């Protein structure tokens, strides 16, 4: 099956700093999503982005499908950005199945 690797595994930021999270995947994908899991365990979809660039407030994401990676940018980080960020992909012939990366655990300090 497809391999999804995220880096860095852990990240500590001071409030106001910017960061870039990376997701590499091993095969062509037809679905790529970024999720944020808050400290209480709730997972929220941030972006559906199999290719191209999207922005939502202080967050933006870029997927370069031909090079098999996606980046999530967080600007002017806030303490509420803390949690774990997951990249998940679905590849051709996988149907409804998403494969998740191991996540990046982010802590934003005040």
């Amino acid at each position, binding site marked *: 099956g497809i391999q999804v690797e995220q880096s860095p595994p852990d990240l500590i930021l001071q409030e106001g700093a910017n960061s870039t999270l990376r997701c590499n995947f091993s095969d062509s994908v037809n679905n790529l*999503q970024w999720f944020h899991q808050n400290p209480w365990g*709730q997972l929220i*979809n941030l972006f*559906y982005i199999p290719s191209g660039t999207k922005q939502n407030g202080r967050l933006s994401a870029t997927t370069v499908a031909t090079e098999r990676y996606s980046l999530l940018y967080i600007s002017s980080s806030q303490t509420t950005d803390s949690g774990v960020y997951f990249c998940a992909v679905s590849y051709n012939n996988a149907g*409804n199945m998403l*494969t998740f990366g191991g996540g990046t655990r982010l802590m934003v300090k005040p």
Partner: protein
Amino acid sequence: DVKVTQSSRYLVKRTGEKVFLECVQDMDHENMFWYRQDPGLGLRLIYFSYDVKMKEKGDIPEGYSVSREKKERFSLILESASTNQTSMYLCASRDQSQETQYFGPGTRLLVL
């Protein structure tokens, strides 16, 4: 607003017990999913269902079964709980025409 609910936030069971985890969505979504989440392993798909009474195995179905008798409800069953099934269990749903999955709050299961 999209809503996925799970029957329990925390659950403690004994080895060998039969365990039912229930998930309900109010969005009329065709697709529903059960994942487990373990430290360092991310989320792994156990089973999913694309319609009532239909189910497909995910990556780690061993030791689990599922039931989908109604469109809004998807149950995960541990026939005989074991300590290695201690985990966080997450349910999700998705509309057939969309790509976004919506997750429930999760159930932390401890098997003693």
